[in-house]
């Protein structure tokens, strides 16, 4: 854990959103909505919570971060680039031929990616495998997996959720980016997930329900998790707003996977800078 204030983290989140938006704008391709809903969580994990070394991305004892909702990767790439995992110039190459920044995270190409993702529902299982390895090897690194709520439709998620409980993986934290939007509609319309906090409790998890776009609440939940001694795997049910930070993107289905044009980009950058 690094000593960094909530105010400073908010500033970093603002910077990451602007970087991610610029990447998507320059690529004219990508997923801003789900990147923005996850910004506070990604920021708090990378800048404060996780025990990592950007100069040594394969350090065996590092904490792991898995973006199971891989399409939100511009926000993760922004964090990795700003932290120095790779030269910042690469941030201008998203989705371009030969880039380390693939449309979805590729662990073989991009330093700091702990597992390749993109096909929804699969990252959590890999995180469970990593957390299990830590236990078997007597190491104290932790694993954080960010999943989308839409992604919870996938049956494999629940296989992995049960396995982490079975193996008492208290070193695993699942963060649900609960923005209630998936590609074809709201989660409530498509496949309702009902009360995810209760659900995860019933699955044996220590749970936290927070406003996932409120940095103070994100930091507070991560603090409690770090200090916890319940022996249970952890879950943060983070209620978020898809497209958070840009007026015309917030809670809009259409901004799941669309790049802004020049005018939209300028409005968005302005709003991210000054608020709206």
């Amino acid at each position, binding site marked *: 854990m690094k000593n960094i204030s909530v105010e400073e983290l908010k500033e970093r989140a603002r910077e990451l959103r602007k970087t991610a938006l610029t990447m998507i704008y320059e690529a004219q391709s990508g997923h801003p909505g789900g990147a923005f809903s996850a910004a506070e969580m990604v920021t708090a994990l990378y800048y404060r919570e996780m025990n990592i070394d950007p100069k040594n991305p394969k350090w*065996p004892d590092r904490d792991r971060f898995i973006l199971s909702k891989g399409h939100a990767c511009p926000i993760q790439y922004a964090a990795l680039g700003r932290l120095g995992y790779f030269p910042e110039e690469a941030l201008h190459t998203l989705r371009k031929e030969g880039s380390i920044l693939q449309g979805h995270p*590729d*662990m*073989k190409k991009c330093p700091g990616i*702990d*597992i*390749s*993702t*993109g*096909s929804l*529902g*699969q*990252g*959590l*299982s*890999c*995180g*469970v*495998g*990593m*957390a*299990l*390895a*830590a236990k*078997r*090897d007597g190491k104290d690194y932790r694993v954080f997996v960010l999943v989308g709520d839409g992604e919870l439709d996938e*049956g*494999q998620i629940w*296989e*992995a959720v*049960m*396995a982490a409980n*079975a*193996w008492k993986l208290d070193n695993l934290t699942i963060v649900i980016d609960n923005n209630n939007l998936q590609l074809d509609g709201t989660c409530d319309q498509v496949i309702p997930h009902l009360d995810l906090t209760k659900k995860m409790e019933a699955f044996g998890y220590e749970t936290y329900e927070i406003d996932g776009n409120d940095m103070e609440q994100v930091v507070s939940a991560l603090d409690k998790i770090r200090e916890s001694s319940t022996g249970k795997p952890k879950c943060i049910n983070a209620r978020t707003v898809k497209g958070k930070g840009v007026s015309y993107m917030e809670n809009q289905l259409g901004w799941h996977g669309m790049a802004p044009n020049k005018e939209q980009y300028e409005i968005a950058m302005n709003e991210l800078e000054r608020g709206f």
Partner: protein
Amino acid sequence: MEGKKIPTRDGFGKAIVELGRENKNIYVVDIDIGKSCKTGEFAKELPGQHVNVGIAEQNGAGVAAGLATTGKIPFVVTYAVFGSLRMSEQVRQEICYPNLNVKIACSHGGVTPANDGASHQCIEDMGVYRTIPNMTVIMPADYYATKALVKEAAKTYGPMYLRFTRDAIPVIYDENQKFEIGKAIQLSQGRDVAIIANGDTVHLALKARDVLEGRGISARVLDMHTIKPLDVEAVLGCVRDIGRIITVEDHNIFNGLGSAVCEVAAEAGNARVKRVGIQDQFGMSAPYERLLEINGITVENIVALAQGEW
């Protein structure tokens, strides 16, 4: 050696426990059919290297990928039909795409779970995995080949699919036989016809060779235990030296050994290939030999094809 029959899953069970004793990074990820897939001894002796994910193939593949990122060498163990089709996308995305060192080791290949019926028989697996980049696809021909190839797999980096038999099949090798992944074993020289087989059909090819020999026809027999990477040189040798090739496999005639050999032969030209295998149809509960017979996977059919029009 003739007459001795052992299921190749037994060879896997023996090999994996020996590997696990020698190397603490060897893991078994069971999908709750460990008893049937012969990992019981491993689980009992090496519990720290064993995990059972329950009846959850997709998670099993992902957990193995996660373990592999930390330096473990996980063997995901289940039946061929589940280990290929049920988890194939997970294997593609999380194992083959990042090129992680995970082995998918499956019993019940082909029609060898004969009594279980079509739901448990698997004729598509090698074809599915042959099309995924970075994947190696292996089916050993007997107990000793299995032991040896499982050990080769463990010491060779990369994603691999290994396929074993549920039912007992004849032992054709001894424990001194050396195996190399991607290198066919030539079991006889031959000049009139080449029979390229793998897995539980290699012994049929050998019997066909003997029958043909009695009729003055000399057959080259190859055990093509690895269909990917295919031993292209060995196939080209058959094209060059003989030009008449019969492939034999306990797998759909589409996209398995026969298809792989056809690809090489067609590009080389100057050879004809006749394929023996499952005739693109689902199986049923029946004796193993009967299922092979229904599909023409018999010594008689191989002999007839060898003696037929070319």
